[in-house]
């Protein structure tokens, strides 16, 4: 019997929705508010939205973005929540928040904003520093009177169902105001949920939250601030407004804390947001004079460089390969992902969650390629070698994992997980973009062979093995690089901005000092990009 409206149920969450025939499963999931990974934005490229469907007429694994519903369906989601990075190196700071208690016990804002009167006696004065990432939101709840940390909480960014990377989300938002608002609403839902959970976790009422400091990349902050995003989608990728921004939480529809003032620091540029500025603040850019470079690798790679008075904020299009997208067995860093690889007489892997390996995430990819280079399974041009060309010291067990499948050679890491020649090429493209960018900006400075501390920030930077990143040349080929992992530097910076009003002024000055460049637009980027395509021939 033919129907126009069909019922779709999603498991294990149990959400139900009725949609018209012809809707894709991914669209239905979005309507039902189900978190479904679609890193490529639903274009059928990444294969991450594979779901198992059951109906009276069919059963099997299909891509949610490309499958049109024709009858009542039950959909089983295979994806697991990603691993979230909460910790960031914190810096000691003198407590001097924007909101203070006056002599008579009244509250005031240093910037002069009027505050709503206290709701009740014995009010605590709380603030939240929030780092909105592309995949996750992290909130730090502080007591602003004594500077104590009360809670840290995180949540998945609900916008993910509209694409894992920002460009996909921009693409979706540009299709109409309705889409834009959907994206914005998903973000607000995640944010409000997070704030509520954060306060609940320590049994404190949300009414006491007086200030929010929110940092994030430029496009997501545009969604949050309800600003138009057209300019961010096309060259020259300019923000609609640069900031800084003070808004009431009420006008931004942060409904859980309508009484709060919300501060969003300025953007450095279209691809380098307030999160990067916060990270730079936390890592003492502009304060300590020694050379430093902060690198945050995502779909978009951000490179902050300080050499003397010169402050540069650059971005490069790394693409999603290092996040596991476009890799045949790639996946995000969630349960089942191979996150560590060592090769000795055989393959040793660590799997997130400890169970069976179902894919490989970015840190695992870097490990695997670094180890394959060490054993001579890949030559420096990136070519995967057949067993007959592998050095004799390599054990037969490793050699047996080099399998020819049709025209293509692959290296088998686990029962269901392998790396193909194509995957290695995809990683080369991504790493050449990051390393090419780094080499380009370094080449313009007087750094030459001086030691350079490289601060690896963000989720990916915190989980990768720095030695292996150096082995594959992810950070370029500059000698004397000293990589350090600094965790969620943006979150740490947001905390500084919350606890110290002078820090905000410093950050705003720092933002002015940064020269912002989108390196892909520059003529000589191609030369550096191609130069960095090969892998280093030796250990650093």
């Amino acid at each position, binding site marked *: 019997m033919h129907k126009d409206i069909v019922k779709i149920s999603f498991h294990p969450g149990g959400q139900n929705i009725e949609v018209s025939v012809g809707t894709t499963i991914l669209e239905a999931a979005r309507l039902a508010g189900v978190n479904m990974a679609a890193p490529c934005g639903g274009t059928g490229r990444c294969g991450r939205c594979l779901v198992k469907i059951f109906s009276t007429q069919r059963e099997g694994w299909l891509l949610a973005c490309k499958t049109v519903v024709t009858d009542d369906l039950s959909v089983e989601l295979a994806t697991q929540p990603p691993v979230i990075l909460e910790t960031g190196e914190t810096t000691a700071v003198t407590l001097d928040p924007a909101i203070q208690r006056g002599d008579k016990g009244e509250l005031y804002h240093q910037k002069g904003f009027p505050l709503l009167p206290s709701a009740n006696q014995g009010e605590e004065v709380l603030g939240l520093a929030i780092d909105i990432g592309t995949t996750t939101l992290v909130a730090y709840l502080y007591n602003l009177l004594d500077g104590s940390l009360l809670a840290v909480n995180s949540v998945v960014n609900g916008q993910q169902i509209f694409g894992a990377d920002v460009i996909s989300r921009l*693409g979706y938002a540009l299709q109409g105001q309705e889409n834009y608002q959907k994206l914005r609403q998903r973000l607000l839902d995640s944010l409000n949920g997070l704030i509520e959970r954060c306060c609940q976790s320590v049994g404190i009422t949300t009414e006491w939250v007086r200030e929010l400091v929110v940092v994030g990349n430029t496009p997501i902050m545009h969604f949050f601030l309800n600003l138009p995003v057209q300019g961010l989608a096309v060259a020259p990728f300019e923000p609609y407004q640069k900031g800084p921004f003070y808004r009431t939480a009420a006008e931004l529809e942060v409904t859980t804390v309508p009484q709060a003032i919300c501060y969003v620091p300025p953007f450095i540029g279209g691809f380098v947001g307030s999160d990067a500025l916060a990270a730079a603040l936390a890592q003492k850019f502009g304060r300590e004079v020694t050379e430093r470079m902060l690198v945050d690798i995502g779909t978009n790679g951000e490179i902050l460089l300080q050499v003397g008075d010169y402050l540069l904020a650059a971005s490069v299009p790394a693409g999603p390969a290092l996040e596991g997208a476009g890799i045949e067995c790639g996946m995000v860093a969630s349960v089942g992902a191979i996150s560590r690889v060592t090769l000795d007489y055989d393959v040793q892997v660590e799997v997130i969650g400890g169970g069976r390996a179902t894919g490989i995430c970015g840190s695992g990819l870097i490990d695997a390629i670094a180890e394959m280079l060490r054993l001579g399974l890949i*030559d420096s*041009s*990136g*070519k995967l070698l057949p067993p007959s060309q592998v*050095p004799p*010291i390599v054990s*037969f067990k490793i050699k047996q994992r080099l399998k020819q499948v049709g025209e293509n050679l692959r290296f088998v890491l686990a029962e269901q997980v392998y790396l193909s020649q194509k995957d290695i090429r995809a990683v080369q493209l991504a790493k050449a973009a990051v390393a090419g960018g780094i080499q380009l900006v370094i080449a313009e400075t007087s750094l030459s062979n001086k030691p350079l501390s490289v601060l690896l920030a963000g989720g990916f930077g915190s989980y990768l093995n720095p030695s292996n990143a150096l082995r594959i040349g992810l950070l370029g080929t500059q000698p004397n690089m000293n990589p350090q992992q600094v965790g969620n530097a943006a979150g740490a910076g947001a905390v500084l901005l919350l606890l110290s009003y002078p820090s905000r002024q410093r950050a705003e000055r720092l933002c002015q000092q940064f020269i912002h460049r989108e390196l892909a637009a520059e003529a000589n980027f191609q030369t550096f990009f191609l130069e960095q395509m090969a892998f280093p021939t030796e250990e650093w």
Partner: protein
Amino acid sequence: MLSFQDRVKKEILVIDGAMGTLLQQRGLPSGWCPDEWNVSHPEVIQEVHRLYLEAGADIITTNTFGAIRSKLADYGLEDRVKELNQAAVTLAKEVAKPYGALVAGSIGPLGKFLQPLGEISFDEAYQQFLEQCRAMVEAGVDLILFETFGDIGEMRAALIAAADAGNVPVVASFTFDESGRTFTGTDPETAAVVVERLGVSAIGVNCSVGPRQLADVVQRLTQSTNLPILVSPNAGMPEMIEGQTVFRETPELMADYAIRFVEYGASILGGCCGTTPLHINAIRQGVKELTLKPRHKLFGLRVASRVKTATIDPKGMPIAIGERLNPTGKKALQAEIREGKTEITRRDALAQVAAGAAILDVNVGVGGVDQVTAMERAVNAVQVLVDAPLCIDSTDPQVIEQALKNYHGKALINSVNGEEKSLATILPLAKRYGAALIGLTLDDQGIPATAKERLAVARKLMQRVEELGIPKQDLMIDTLVLTVSAQPEGVPETLNAIRYIKKDLGLTTSLGVSNVSFGLPNRGLINTAFFSMALAAGLDAAILNPQDQRMMETLRAAAVLTGRDVRAEQYIAREQAAQGGNQLSAAPEPVASTPLEVLYQAVLSGDKDNVVDHINKAIDSGLSPMELLDKALIPGIEEVGRRYGAGIYFLPQLMMAGETMTKSFERLKPELAKGPSRKLGTVILATVKGDIHDIGKNILSVMLANHGFEVIDLGKNVDNQEILQAARAHQADIIALSALMTTTMVHMPDCIAKVKEAGLPCKVMVGGAAVTDQYAREIGADGYAFDAVEAVGLAKKLVC
């Protein structure tokens, strides 16, 4: 009756051929334990032995290839090891006696691998071999033959067990594949080096391949040892015919090769799978008149990893022993050893070998750590990663023993010294596990002040080593470096001791060079100067940091100056390699001879700097520009495209080849302009409005031009209006659009619509990271290409 030891020194011996196939012909059912027939069918076993004896074999091998506990367990016969082996030896001896022939007890591999390659521990393997060897020795076997071993680690365990089982000669026979290595990668020289010191009387090669494929292995083996050599090939390569494995080499051919092997220096000849008494008889007849070829080669001190031998020759190149796998003064490495990790260890091992270390010293001396476990972990981590042999650095005999057990090669022990306690504990370990030694010139009285006294300690060390039956060339003497700032008089004594020990004792020498500079500023400078003085005095090896470029340069230069790098060959090779810079193509291309081949190779290797020269020379030699294009350049770029498609080449190689082609076209332009137009079509190329990512488009631009298209490259961030105007103005055949971002590819359908609207006759093809085949179809494009190579093919298709 003469013993094996006596006979093998005097005559060419013939050993028997296959046993298994002959038993099958006599009714052994498949799946039945062949070794069990020693008890149930003794008459059949003796019949086979007799056939080989009649054919002329001097040695027959017992039917015990699989009579070891773990293999018998497959048939539930694990408790009959002793019975089956002793029955086999007794049967064979009975038959052999009237012929005056010898009985070799055959022992095959366990069929499982030793740690770290497999699951069996050294001790477990040792126990199994010991049990089988003991049974045979008790039954009076004349010699033990370990045959068909593909893993040197297992062979070591077997030989150590055999030595403990009793005083019987032992032959170690390996099986090599067509690449000339054993299954776990050991080459013939390394196999010889490792087993020579484990008490073997002969070294052998058997099975796997036929005599033709073994020729090279046998030759290399004869040049790697002075021990007698056994060769028992299969009767050819195994072939599958109607589900049966057959071997097809004739007895005559086997005999011809046996004669050749004797000429190389082999002295025990026989056959393995597929050979019959006929083959053995032919070999017997072939070698009857031949005599032993004496071999008396000097080898120096040799140590080996599983796959490679390092030689320290008193007259050859001095070598560097990498010192960095030593936690002294290294906090990160200390922490790693405590935590039971090997990350730094592995990286430092690789880096040192890349920097030129021939041997790696391994030391795990961290306080409060179980060093036995730590040493085993470190040795296992390094021995599956780098091919440099290891030097086991410890004073604790237990730590050294654990390392030697687990090391699948011949290690160097660092160190023994003249103290009685050291001699009593370390020397037996070297003997038992077949290791070489570094001997320190100190004894119970401490470090002697003078060179003469150090020579005396060295002499004592040498005598004690030889008393145990270890050849003296396996002892290298460290004459000890004192700190020059504290004891300036010590330097000449150390250097003189090197001279005396080399001259009087004929031993090799080594030093831990960097001790000399302790307490002084700019230590590297002192180290380098002292090192060159020591090399001048004749130093053969130094324990140093190979990543210290000055030290390695000093080593290479001094080798030339002291005449140890003959004709400076290694020095020149290294310097030339350093000048060569980065070669993009990994595999060396075949040497080109004709001008066309040179040009073809220039395109493949992306030699844009020299291609114009090559073209000029080709034209001078009388070739026409058209010929260059059709017979060298175009086939070259097409091959590049093929290699790119196959994953062999990547973007840099593609781009280099493309630029080489561009240079070629520029050079040939005047000549080609005179001929007929070869233009395939005109392509308008652009990255769409709003998008600034143009690397892929730039590569396509070069590739299209190289394949004969006229390319109008409008650049990036190009408005559709401009694209249309260009298409009209140039009467384009194709518009090719690229977009990297999903937010900008939306300009593509608009462009297609405009082209249709304007009624332009050109085709539109699309590509770029954001674009998919499906998207191209949705927007009505005429084609989609994944990459530049695909795009060239698509463009060609669209214009014809």
